[in-house]
């Protein structure tokens, strides 16, 4: 695996952990808000910003995973074509 690819995978892994943490945090705030609506755990500026960061990170992660997946498919395809050519030559 190239150094670049490894770096991208590492960043995506970090991103995935952040998204996981933020999603559990949002779920916690959602439950707290249901229990004690008066505290406005969801309807406040801080939560709105957390939601925005969460959405942004999730979008970047999704884009990264899609690009990586497409590249993997392309590589798999070209790999199998190479193998096919070699097989024909034999």
């Amino acid at each position, binding site marked *: 695996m190239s150094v670049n690819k490894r770096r991208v995978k590492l960043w995506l892994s970090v991103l995935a*952990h952040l998204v*996981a*943490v*933020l999603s*559990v*945090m949002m779920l*916690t*705030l959602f439950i707290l808000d*249901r*229990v*004690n*609506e*008066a*505290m*406005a*755990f969801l*309807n*406040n*500026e*801080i*939560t709105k910003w*957390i939601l925005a960061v969460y959405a942004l990170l999730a979008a970047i992660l999704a884009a990264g995973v899609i690009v990586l997946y497409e590249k993997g498919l392309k590589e798999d395809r070209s790999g199998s074509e190479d193998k096919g050519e070699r097989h024909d030559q034999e």
Partner: protein
Amino acid sequence: MKEKLRPFLLVLADLALLGASLVVFALFHHVLPGTAVERQETTPGETAVFSFPGRFTDGGVEERWDGDIYHYRDAGLDLTVTFYEKDGASYTLADFYLKDLSRFRTAFAGGEFVTGVSDSVLHMASENGALLAASGDYCGVRKSGVVIRDGRVYRRDKTHEVCVLYRDGVMETYRFADFHVDDAVARGAWQAWDFGPCLLLPDGSARTDFHPGIAGPNPRMLLGYFEPGHYCLAAVNGRQSASPGLTLPECAALMEGLGCRAAYNLDGGHSAVMTLSGQIVNKPSKAGGRDISDILYLAKEAGA
């Protein structure tokens, strides 16, 4: 071995990060004090003066107890405090007539509106010269929600159902979608609380459609409106073996039964505290109640 531990350590690290994030959130959401709101817009108009012939004295103060009922009268206030205990419900009811609405005031912990600052109802009452004081809507624990107090607008964004006491003495409660802060300010709001829910329907009948998450039996602080200049406050005792508290439908039925035209639920639970002349006159679920951010009070003297 290290490879086997890796997923476990990763989950642990994520949980630690989650815990830290929630702590930071709590710090900024309701622990760290905010900054005082220095420039406030004042709502237009003068506070109303009401006429209730025979209710007020010519200048003196009359104070007496009839068993469990406390009576107070002076030149601008007629107050009756009654202690009820029946059918497993117990509450302290303060019914009052005012000559001048400006005597029905509010105060913040520390003397100015700053989020994250709290104090006891008893101390705030004594600091402000209150005859009767009651816990408010705990506006200082939240970073949003309408706050209009004594005719000054501190915060304009609504978060819940809102109750407005206008300078003409009319009190109205609003469902979330029906409240427009600009209209309330232009009409001359004297006080506005953002907690709720509203307890009565526009025709004065008890509301029944409450969110189940908040409707259960609890200590409550209720504000009721009969007519301009005539209001009541009810401190419902709860979370005690003798008195579990009232559900919101029961609170609505209570306020309907009292004959209120509008009624509103303020912050309850440990916050619900009512004081009279420097004494707590309800049974808070936590001894002395908890420190909160704001109170409603009747000043001992008009204009004091």
